[in-house]
């Protein structure tokens, strides 16, 4: 499994989880597979670490969960709450601002000859 530098990952799992849950409700395994597929495995974590993220988001009211029997098993499905939708908007704007600024430093000005 690819590993990702954790120091660059602060807040990223939250953002991705909220974005994925905007479309539909999902359970943990589905969320992890969706992150792997949609980021072409660039963002790839130990799969189990998504649960503390989900539980913390649920505790903050950004998502809600519901236990449901599926195929003889019980699964916990997560869905985005209105509070989570606002949080997603905030985080997305913040992320775009930061990545835009970093991009500008890396390739934009060329002042320091960083690249």
């Amino acid at each position, binding site marked *: *499994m690819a590993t990702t530098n954790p120091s660059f990952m602060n807040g990223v799992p939250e953002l991705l989880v909220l974005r994925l849950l905007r479309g539909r409700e999902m359970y*943990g*395994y589905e969320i*992890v597979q969706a992150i792997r597929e949609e980021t072409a495995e660039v963002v790839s*974590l*130990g*799969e*189990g*670490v998504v*649960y*503390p*993220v989900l*539980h*913390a988001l649920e*505790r903050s009211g950004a998502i809600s969960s519901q236990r449901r029997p599926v195929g003889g*098993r019980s*699964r*916990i499905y997560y869905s985005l709450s209105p509070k989570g939708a606002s949080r997603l908007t905030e985080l997305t704007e913040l992320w775009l601002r930061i990545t835009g600024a970093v991009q500008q430093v890396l390739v934009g000005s060329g002042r320091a000859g960083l690249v």
Partner: protein
Amino acid sequence: MRASFEPLWDRLLEGGVRRRPARRYLAELRDHLDDLIAEERRAMNDPREVETRALCRLGSFEMLADAMIERREFQAWGRKAPVAAYLVAPAVALAAATALTVVGVVTTVEQVRGAAGPGNLPSWLGEFATGMMFFSHAILPVLLAWALSAVAFRNRSPWLWPTCGIVALASLGSIFHPVLTLPSATTRGEVAVSPDGIGAFAVLLAMAAVPYAALLLWRAARERHAE
């Protein structure tokens, strides 16, 4: 072979994670592992390596534990604020319960006195008052210490602050020994505080601390045996 999550459970509790979120975390990890194993089987991987590969994808126990432990919202109060949880809260609880007991006894005495008249207090009232005072300064601290011990032991809390809490409860119980003097026909009743001697403190401390010490010794022996 089904992987055991027992080491992860132990590590979460030792890291201060509350039992409820830890239990839920493990339940979801088990479900996730089942899904990974099913996926690996569908991919026709070597059946002997299926579980190993699935566990590898799930993440190391160290990584999984750290992901939960570093989130303060899942920490037990005994870890977030051990002084408040194991020292201040039990002391406040003992003070409040003692005050309530004294108020309850005084109210009862006043009620009975109002009905029976001054100087005609029934004989059971003295035994009742003495019994309740004994309960508040000798039984209540021990019960609180046992409850504290159970919580600290279940949460795998380091022994320091629970021990301080037990000593504090025994000290408070032996210092604030309320003594009630019932009113008579000519005198008013009164409530006084009469600290016990060092002997009574030692007995109270022993009763309060022995179960916790026994539990810690038992765990240490079990861990030595497991090694």
